[in-house]
């Protein structure tokens, strides 16, 4: 593995850098637009110049760039503060699923608009009774001629309120074992029969929604994969989810906490001189560095044509807990004042307090720590699956505790 650019990579980086320098929107261009508007403006600009979703094939609006080029681009783009999170589910999860399972007509219709940001997608998998047991979903679709009729409730849907389309898995046959009675669809989120309610989190934010379906109708042509093949299709989406969620934890990391520790005193000296503080920071630095180079290694593997494995689960498993502990530690460094959550009064605009309140979600969304550890144990190490009491039992007969 080489940690410096090859001549071709350096040339690509230069090109990307130059384009960004000339094209990143100014504050004035963004003025008056909400988060969605800002994101769409920037995405369209990238699309028009061939810098959107650069690893996608050109026919779908991409650039056919290599994985390494993709990382170089992402690194360079990340040097600016730019909107774009609203596209991550559509481009990161829905698009790969469509590429693998949709027919050519659907691909031609939807993928370019996903790349250009003109259409935003969301994902509707989780349900109240599901949790880690995703396949235990109950929202049902019943066939009625060339259409399906959907009834039930999804939850934890990010961006449902501003999305144009959504991907979802539904129970089409409760009489067969859990994983076998599911079918996968994409739907128009603006169609009748859908009601969206925001879920307020303990951080005070509401990034997720509950989505209720009442006799909502969807054409059979919007089915991805065969009837009863929904779980298989969903796995395509999920493998991409874990790669795209990543470590999280925002800006709380060794860089920020180290700088905070320089400003805070212990025994009359900067906290960075305190051996206990140093030891903690050193351990976290090892984790950050290890995660960074692990993702580079996964990338090298990718560029050698290997498929990235569930090794990516490491990022989420380690990163979320680390961010929680670091936020807690940064709060402690401030002593009593660490409790203050007012951005005007608290260090770094209350970033540590905000992270502390938001992070419990990151240890859960997209698979809990416990599920991640299971994935590593089973799929990487090849250890046996947990004993399954629901195996082979018709879905309708599985114990639920309810």
């Amino acid at each position, binding site marked *: 593995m080489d940690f410096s650019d090859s001549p071709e990579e350096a040339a690509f980086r230069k090109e990307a850098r130059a384009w960004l320098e000339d094209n990143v929107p100014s504050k004035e261009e963004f003025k008056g637009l909400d988060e969605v508007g800002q994101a769409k403006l920037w995405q369209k600009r990238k699309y028009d110049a061939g810098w959107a979703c650069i690893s996608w094939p050109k026919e779908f609006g991409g650039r056919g760039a290599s994985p390494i080029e993709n990382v170089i681009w992402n690194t360079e783009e990340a040097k600016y503060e730019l909107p774009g999170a609203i596209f991550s589910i559509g481009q990161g999860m829905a698009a790969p699923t469509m590429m693998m399972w949709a027919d050519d007509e659907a691909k031609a219709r939807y993928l370019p608009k996903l790349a250009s940001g003109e259409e935003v997608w969301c994902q509707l998998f989780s349900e109240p009774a599901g949790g880690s047991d995703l396949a235990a979903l109950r929202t049902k679709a019943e066939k009625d001629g060339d259409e399906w009729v959907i009834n039930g409730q999804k939850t934890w849907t990010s961006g449902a309120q501003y999305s144009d389309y959504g991907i979802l898995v539904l129970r089409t046959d409760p009489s067969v074992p859990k994983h076998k009675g599911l079918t996968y669809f994409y739907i128009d989120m603006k169609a009748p029969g859908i009601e969206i309610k925001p879920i307020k989190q303990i951080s005070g934010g509401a990034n997720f929604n509950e989505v209720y379906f009442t006799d909502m109708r969807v054409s059979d042509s919007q089915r991805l994969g065969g009837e009863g093949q929904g779980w298989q299709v969903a796995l395509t989406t999920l493998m991409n989810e874990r790669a795209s969620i990543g470590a999280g934890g925002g800006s709380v990391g060794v860089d920020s906490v180290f700088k905070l520790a320089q400003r805070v005193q212990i025994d009359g000296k900067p906290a960075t001189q305190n051996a*206990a503080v140093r030891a903690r920071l050193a351990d976290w630095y090892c984790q950050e560095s290890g995660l960074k180079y692990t993702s580079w290694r996964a990338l090298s593997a990718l560029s050698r044509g290997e498929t990235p494995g569930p090794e990516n689960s490491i990022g989420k498993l380690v990163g979320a807990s680390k961010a929680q502990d670091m936020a807690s530690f940064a709060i402690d460094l401030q002593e009593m004042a660490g409790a203050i959550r007012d951005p005007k009064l608290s260090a770094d605009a209350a970033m540590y307090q905000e992270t502390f309140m938001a992070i419990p979600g990151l240890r859960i969304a997209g698979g809990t720590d416990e599920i991640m550890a299971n994935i590593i144990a089973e799929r990487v190490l090849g250890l046996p699956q947990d004993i399954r009491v629901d195996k082979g039992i018709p879905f309708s007969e599985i114990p639920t505790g309810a």
Partner: protein
Amino acid sequence: MLREQAQGFLADNCPPAVVRAVLEGDHEYDEGLWKKIIEMGWTATVIPEEFGGLGLSFLELSVIAEELGRVVAPVPFSSSVYLATEALKLAGSVEQKEKWLPKLATGEVIGTLAMSEGAGRPDAGNIKCEESDGTLTGTKIPVPDAGIAGLSIVLAKSGEGASLYLVEMAQGSKVAVTPVTTLDPTRGHGQIEFDGAQAQLLGEAGQGMRLLEKLLDQAAVLFAWEQVGGAQAALEQAKGYAMERFAFGRPIGSYQAIKHKLANMYVKNTLARSNCYYGAWALSTGADELPLAAATSRVSAIQAYYFASKENIQTHGGMGFTWEFDCQFYYRRAKLLSVNIGSEAMWQDRLIDAYEQNVA
């Protein structure tokens, strides 16, 4: 007896809805609950009878602290009882005690301790709040219950070094309070600006840090009991959910990952509780071991509550971080209590200081 009584009282008067109302509302505490606590005589527990108190011991107060912690009570009990009242008992002159203790006992006045001046540990070398000729000038932030306190005990410096001062809050523009948002809105906090406020020396001049250390040793045990109570409640909530919630056809509490997580909570809680028993004994008997016992109680209670409160959310999965679930109460309170009288790191350091003293 007292425990059952306290549990019954709080079950009736401090259900989760009371906590939630303060969390979501504009009030800094639940006034109704506070009034009933006063009626129960809890604020008078360890005040001597001669000053209008019940003259009970810290053992009784520990029981109350644990139960208040268990229900995450939104009241200024710790500020008024563990800190302001004890500061007066510790260092007050007879006049000062006669004037204030009966009012603190009856709850006519809420007291608090104004110590912090922003990020970091306050000490004689870095505090800026200054007394001169009986008046005080400077800013304290954050101060728990600043907006509802009638009396504050203030750490400030003067010619003789750091000292504690008694300051009545009702002094017009000389004592200005601004509310401050914290991680745990179920407990009010504020910033106090003293601008030539009348201040009375509490205890000997220049002895502020020594008094504060003594005061915090005592308070550490009582805070630790609140933390242990909260940690226990978080464990119970996690356990309840783990038994009810099914995944893959069986309760999630039947998976070792969850079982061992809850077993770890239980272990941490039990060790912390045992340390707290010792702390309460040292506190109630005035044993020489108090500094060590207090730091031990405090460090283990901080660790237990942080662990229980975050892993309770984790056990709940997605539900755990929704606003409508109560898991957040423990998570917020755990973090607030962990910094409110000095962080884990500060108390680890004090623990070893005390250990060294005992060894020497």
